[in-house]
């Protein structure tokens, strides 16, 4: 029960820190952006804490076990996104003064339709990203404690929505910053321990990949989800009485909920449509999906999706709005690159050790539990249990932190952008959205977390990335252009996913471009926006709206300078400031300027 002892503190601390934020919550701004008073270092810890989801903590190592060393490109793309963000988006986005991405779209282009469309995109990304988080929570808890899958899902949903409904963004900030430090410790310390404890033989083997063809021990595999295995001759399983029984060669439909113990030294059955861990090509540092023969295209496709997707992820952008000004937002992005780079040095260690020690996870498709399954393989005493507990606690922190941010943007999209309302409605939206996500996650146990999260990134890359980049840097963007561009990106990516799931079997580079559509959907969205905007005419105020995003906040206030002597340099006749402010506001700002 040491595992329950590990998860309980994470959950409790999350709730306690969350409660700290409750007292000062009065407005939607308090709730959504913590009243914009978060320092760059705290904010970048929170951004990293939010960003290191189950996909990073567990998923990358799982993908390395399954697909090979090339999967280590995912974290590179995840981190590179923040440099693009730093260069292009962070400061102007914060200077727009918007609360959410749809808010920004409306402020820049003045279209209520665009705002609603952007809110819908936020919902799509939110669902694609949240469902795998809750699913992994259920899966990890069921792997380590033998509880049913739904317990973990409901537990995660309950904790996240309670913390958020009470404390909003302020609570989320402290929770996420705490959880970043926690996750970093829970990831690095066990990695070091595993490396030392595994011994020289395993370490040597880890760097000399060989195909997983024979079980090296009596291996118990539990199939939570059904699978179809191709059984070669001579596969023996250990019966309940301890006797050996040979499996019938040929295809074997394993029903869900089966537990099989394969005997020591028997050949490994193959899984339909999956490459065997350690097979030829596993050691290549490129992503050759399904061995189609286009490793470079596959790698670039993933890099484009993750890098540009990061720039458009609504929950990450929302975090930048909590900075006090554009400069702090930019610093946040730079610090985040450093913090993430430290974390991402380690998933590879779990991946290569996992290939040696727990390759059988590929039979069930649950390679993303490799990280939590490793300590028990290295040490079956107390130390192994303690480290399993630590890693489980870290993994739980990972999906709690990510879900907090995502649930916040989803409820913000519903209650701030689609149906504007007050604080109470925002809190209700949080609980409602969490309930829906839990219901969606319950039947999703069979989905691969990595796939869904990559889809979320692809949608963000082909909708919000062009909208933000062109909105900030191109003055001729029109509302119609933005709407058609976002719609084109959304429709083409979703269509591509549907073809991939339910369509015909494709091969060659077409298959890669359907499974990883970012290389063509992102340019498509950009081109649509540019061409349609060129056909129309930007509004007369468009140039001012764009330039305003680049203006530093800490310039002299026009109210201050009026009372000072440099009034002569200003063309007061064309200034629109006085007309836009009520006398009360003018009185107060004048007092501040004195």
């Amino acid at each position, binding site marked *: 029960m040491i595992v329950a002892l590990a998860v309980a503190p994470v959950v409790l601390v999350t709730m306690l820190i969350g409660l700290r934020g409750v007292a000062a919550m009065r407005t939607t701004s308090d709730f959504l952006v913590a009243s914009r008073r978060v320092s760059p270092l705290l904010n970048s810890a929170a951004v990293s804490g939010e960003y290191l989801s189950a996909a990073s903590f567990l998923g990358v190592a799982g993908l390395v076990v399954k697909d090979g060393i090339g999967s280590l490109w995912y974290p590179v793309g995840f981190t590179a996104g923040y440099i693009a963000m730093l260069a292009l988006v962070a400061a102007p986005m914060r200077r727009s003064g918007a609360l959410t991405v749809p808010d920004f779209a409306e402020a820049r282009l003045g279209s209520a339709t665009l705002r609603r469309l952007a809110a819908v995109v936020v919902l799509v990304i939110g669902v694609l990203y949240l469902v795998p988080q809750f699913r992994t929570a259920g899966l990890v808890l069921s792997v380590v404690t033998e509880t049913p899958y739904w317990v973990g899902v409901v537990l995660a949903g309950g904790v996240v929505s309670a913390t958020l409904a009470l404390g909003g963004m302020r609570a989320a900030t402290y929770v996420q910053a705490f959880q970043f430090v926690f996750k970093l410790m829970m990831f690095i310390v066990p990695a070091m321990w595993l490396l030392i404890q595994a011994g020289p033989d395993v370490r040597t083997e880890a760097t000399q990949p060989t195909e997983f063809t024979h079980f090296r021990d009596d291996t118990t595999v539990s199939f939570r989800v059904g699978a179809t295995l191709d059984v070669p001759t001579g596969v023996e399983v250990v019966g309940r009485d301890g006797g050996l029984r040979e499996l019938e060669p040929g295809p074997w439909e394993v029903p869900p909920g089966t537990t099989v113990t394969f005997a020591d030294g028997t050949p490994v059955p193959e899984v339909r449509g999956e490459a065997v861990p350690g097979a030829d090509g596993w050691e290549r540092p490129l992503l050759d999906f399904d061995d189609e023969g286009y490793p470079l295209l596959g790698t670039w496709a993933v890099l484009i999706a993750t890098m540009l997707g990061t720039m458009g992820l609504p929950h990450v952008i929302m975090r930048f709005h909590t900075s006090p000004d554009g400069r702090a937002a930019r610093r946040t992005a730079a610090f985040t690159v450093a913090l993430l780079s430290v974390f991402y040095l380690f998933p590879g260690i779990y991946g290569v050790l996992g290939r040696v020690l727990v390759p059988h996870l590929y039979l069930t498709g649950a390679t993303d539990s490799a990280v939590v399954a490793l300590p028990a393989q290295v040490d079956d005493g107390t130390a192994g249990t303690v480290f399993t507990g630590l890693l489980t606690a870290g993994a739980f922190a990972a999906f709690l932190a990510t879900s907090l941010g995502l649930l916040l943007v989803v409820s913000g999209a519903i209650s701030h952008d689609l149906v504007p309302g007050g604080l109470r409605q925002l809190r209700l939206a949080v609980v409602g959205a969490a309930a829906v996500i839990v219901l969606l996650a319950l039947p999703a146990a069979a989905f691969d977390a990595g796939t869904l999260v990559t889809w979320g990134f692809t949608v963000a890359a082909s909708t919000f990335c062009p909208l933000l980049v062109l909105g900030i*840097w191109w003055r001729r963007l029109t509302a119609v252009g933005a709407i058609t561009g976002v719609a084109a990106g959304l429709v083409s990516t979703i269509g591509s996913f549907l073809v991939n799931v339910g369509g015909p079997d494709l091969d060659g580079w077409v298959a890669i471009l359907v499974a990883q559509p970012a290389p063509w959907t992102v340019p498509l969205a950009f081109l649509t926006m540019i061409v349609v905007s060129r056909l129309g005419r930007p509004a007369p105020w468009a140039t001012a709206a764009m330039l305003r995003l680049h203006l530093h906040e800490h310039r002299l206030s026009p109210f201050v300078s009026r009372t000072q002597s440099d009034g002569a340099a200003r063309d007061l006749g064309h200034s629109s400031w006085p007309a836009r402010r009520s006398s009360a506001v003018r009185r107060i700002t004048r007092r501040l300027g004195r």
Partner: protein
Amino acid sequence: MTGRRVAVTSPQTRLAHARRRYRGPWRPTTLDPAEMPRAIALYRAGRRRAIAALAALGALIFGLPFALSLWPALDDMRVAGVPVSWAAIVLVPFPAMVAMAFWQLRRAERAERDLLDPEAPAGSDDGGHGDPSAGPGQPAREGAS
């Protein structure tokens, strides 16, 4: 535990916050004509630096996979038992990206400082701006005065 914290707004304010928000007609963003040249200068400076940073990032992100596919021999070359190509996708991109991020941050901040108050001595950093621990009650605009 220090005592319970309570909101000390008037009941009317609390009512107003809880009410459904009225969204008035949307108004275009305005820019003071006096600030236009400064905004244009900042925009141009920002664009130039962003393009340079993105070019460097693109060269790293797309060049490294290309190099690794060009020289598969790196898989067999080993340093301390680890294939060079494995180390190359962890130990090269991350330090390079951290360096790139801080390089871009420094250039962007310097550009902003130079354009806004050219008289300020170079290298002086008025730490007051980004410091949010200033606490509530201190209006953000005061930073410049």
